[in-house]
C-alpha cells in the first residue's frame, strides 16, 4: 500500500468531473422539490438526456448542440410527469417511478444504433497562465465548460431562491400551495416550470455522462446516478450549498475507491457503493431527531384549486 501515490490535486479535479452529473441532476431536483413536487423520475430524465445528447452530438459533431438537445429532451419527458401529476392529479411517487422505467426503456430504444460509436470531444477550457498555476490550476481552471456551468447553476439557484421575487413565489408554492393560491399565484404553472427546469438539469447531467465522462452510449449508462441525486437533495435538507457538498462527497466516493485500489489498499466495493445511501439515512435520522427537517410543507401533495 502506498497512499503517497494518490495525488490529492488530481483526485479533487477528477472527483469534480465524476460529481458533475449528479450535481446537475440534484440541483434541478431540489428546485422541483422546493416547488412542492416530488419527482422520482430523475434517473429516467437523466438517461433520456444522455441518449438524446449523444445522438445529437454524434450527428452534428457538436457537443454543445448535444447538451442543448439533452436539456430539451429532459424537459420534454419531465412534462409527461408534469401533465400527469399537475393536471390529471396522479400520484407523484407512482408517476415518478413510472417516468424512470419509461426513460430507461425509451433510451434503450433510441440508443440502439449508437452503441459503440465515439462522441465528439468537448474541449477543456485551457486558460493561459491560470490553468498552469500549481494546485489551483488543475482544480479550478482545467475543466470543460459544463463543470463551470454546474457551479454557476448552484449559485444562480441559491441566489434566485433566496433573493428574487420569483424564488419567493416558488418557495411559497412549495410551502403552502393553498395560501399561495389564495394570494393569486398560479400554483400549477409555477410547478410546471420548476418540473421543466428539473428535467432540463437532469438531461444535462445525463449528457455529461455520455458526452464527457465515459464518453459513449450504452444501455443503462447512468447506472443509478439519478437515485444518488435524489438522495443528495434529502441529505442537503433542500439547501443549494449542501447539494454541492453532497454531490462532491458522493461523487468523490467512487473516485476515491478506485484510487485506493490503485494504491494497493483494497476496500470491498460494496461498502463504498452503499455509503451515499448510508450517509443519507444517518442524516435523515439526525434531522428527525432534531425535529426540523427542512422539507417544503406541500412536498408531494397534489394541488387542485377547488372551492
Amino acid at each position, binding site marked *: 500500500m502506498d497512499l503517497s*501515490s*494518490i*495525488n490529492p490535486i*488530481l*483526485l479533487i479535479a*477528477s472527483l469534480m*468531473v*465524476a460529481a458533475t452529473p449528479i450535481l446537475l441532476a440534484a440541483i434541478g431536483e431540489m428546485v422541483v422539490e422546493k416547488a412542492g413536487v416530488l419527482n422520482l423520475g430523475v434517473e429516467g430524465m437523466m438517461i433520456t438526456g444522455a441518449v438524446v445528447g449523444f445522438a445529437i452530438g454524434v450527428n452534428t459533431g457538436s457537443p454543445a448542440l448535444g447538451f442543448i438537445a439533452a436539456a430539451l429532451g429532459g424537459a420534454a419527458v419531465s412534462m409527461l410527469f408534469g401533465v400527469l401529476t399537475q393536471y390529471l392529479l396522479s400520484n407523484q411517487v407512482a408517476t415518478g417511478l413510472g417516468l424512470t422505467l419509461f426513460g430507461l426503456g425509451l433510451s434503450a430504444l433510441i440508443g440502439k444504433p449508437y*452503441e*459503440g460509436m*465515439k462522441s465528439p*470531444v468537448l474541449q477543456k477550457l485551457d486558460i493561459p497562465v491560470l490553468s498552469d498555476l500549481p494546485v489551483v490550476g488543475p482544480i479550478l481552471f482545467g475543466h470543460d465548460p459544463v463543470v463551470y456551468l454546474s457551479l454557476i447553476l448552484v449559485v444562480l439557484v441559491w441566489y434566485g431562491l433566496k433573493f428574487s421575487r420569483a424564488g419567493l413565489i416558488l418557495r411559497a408554492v412549495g410551502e403552502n400551495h393553498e395560501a399561495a393560491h389564495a394570494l393569486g399565484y398560479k400554483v400549477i404553472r409555477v410547478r410546471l416550470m420548476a418540473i421543466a427546469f428539473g428535467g432540463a438539469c437532469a438531461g444535462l447531467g445525463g449528457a455529461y*455522462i455520455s458526452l464527457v*465522462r*465515459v*464518453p*459513449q452510449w*450504452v*444501455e443503462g*449508462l447512468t*447506472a443509478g446516478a439519478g437515485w444518488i441525486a435524489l438522495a443528495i437533495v434529502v441529505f442537503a435538507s433542500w439547501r443549494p450549498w449542501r447539494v454541492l457538498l453532497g454531490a462532491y462527497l458522493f461523487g468523490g466516493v*467512487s*473516485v476515491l475507491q*478506485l*484510487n485506493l*485500489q*490503485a*494504491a*494497493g489498499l*483494497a476496500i470491498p*466495493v460494496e461498502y463504498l457503493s452503499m455509503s451515499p445511501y448510508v450517509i443519507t439515512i444517518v442524516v435523515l435520522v439526525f434531522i428527525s431527531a432534531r425535529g426540523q427537517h427542512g422539507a417544503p410543507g406541500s412536498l408531494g401533495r397534489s394541488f387542485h384549486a377547488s372551492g
Partner: protein
Amino acid sequence: MKSLKPILAGAVLALGLTGPAMAADPVKVGFIYVGPVGDGGWTYEHNQGRLAVEEHFGDAVETVFQESVPEGADAERAITQMALSGADLIFTTSFGYMDATLAAAEKFPDVKFEHATGFKMGDNVSVYSARFYEGRAVQGTIAGHMTQSNIVGYIASFPIPEVIRGINSAYIHAKRVNPDVEFKIIWAYTWFDPAKEADAATALIDQGADVILQHTDSTAPQAAAQSAGNVITFGQASDMSDYGPMPRVSSIIDNWGPYYIARTQAVIDGTWASVNTWDGIGAGMVGIGDISDAVPADVRAEAEALRDALGSGEYHAFTGPINKQDGSVWLADGETADDGTLAGMGFYIEGITDDIPN
C-alpha cells in the same frame, strides 16, 4: 373466416411436410452474450463469429442471440429459454455462465452446449477458450519498453484464473525488458461498465500510469487515455482501431469464427462430441492487432518476433525460472507451465505487490 381457410390448409400442408423435410431443417445456433453486440470488444467479436457462421452456412443454419444477459441466476433462464425455442447448439460466451450452462444442459440432453472460458464440462457441454495470455506477453513487452514512468495500470475485471493469468503474463514480459516496471491493478468487478472503466483508467493515469492494459470489454479506457494524452493502451478482445495510432498501439483480437463454424458443422454432421479446446496465436484464435507507428521500430520487431515464437510453439509464455509472489519456486529454469496449473491459476508471481481479492 374466408381468409382463415387457406392458412389452415397451409398449416396442414406444412405439418404433413415436416416428416420428409426434417433433414433440410436449418440447424439453430444460439448465442448468449454478456454485453451488447456494440461493445466494440468481447461481445462484438463473438457476434462477428456468429455472423461468420451465418455467412458460411447460409440457409442451412439459423442463428439467434441474446445480449446483455447478466451472469447469475438470470443466465439460466435465458439459456433455458433459448433451448426451449429449439436451438440445437448454444454458445454461452462468458465465464460467469458456467453453472447456469451446466444446469441448463442437464435439462436438455439433446441440445449441445459450448461454454467459453470455463472449466466444467459435461456429456453435452464443451468448453473452449483462447490463450489470451500469449497476447498479454506481447503487450507486456511493448508496455515495458514504452513506459516512461515505469508504472503500468491494469484494469482487471473479476479475480478468476483467466484474468490473473493475463496479469502474470503481462508482468513477466514487461519486467523482462524493464526491471523497474511496477503494476497498479484495479479490480472493476464488471466485464462491461464504461463509466466505471473510464473512472478506473483516470484513477490509474492520475497515479502516474502511462500504459493502460484492460481486461474489461468497453472502449471507455481508450477514450480516457486519449483525453489524458501521452498514455498508451491496447485494444481488448477486438482491435479497437478507432483509437489508433495513439493511444491504442496494438491489440489482442479474439477470432471465434473458425471455431464456431467447425462446431456448427459437427452438429450438422452428427459428429459433435464434448471437447476442451484451448487455442492460441498458433491456431489463429488469438490475433495480435497491428502495432502502430507510435511504437519504435526495434520494439515492434521484438514484439513481432515474440508473437511468432509463441505462434510456432518454440516459446511458451510461462517459461521458468518463475517464482510465486511469496518467493517460492513455481517453475525451474527452462520449465514450462502445464495447462492444468494455468487453467486454475490463483496466484500472482514474484514482484507484483498487490493482493488478489478474495
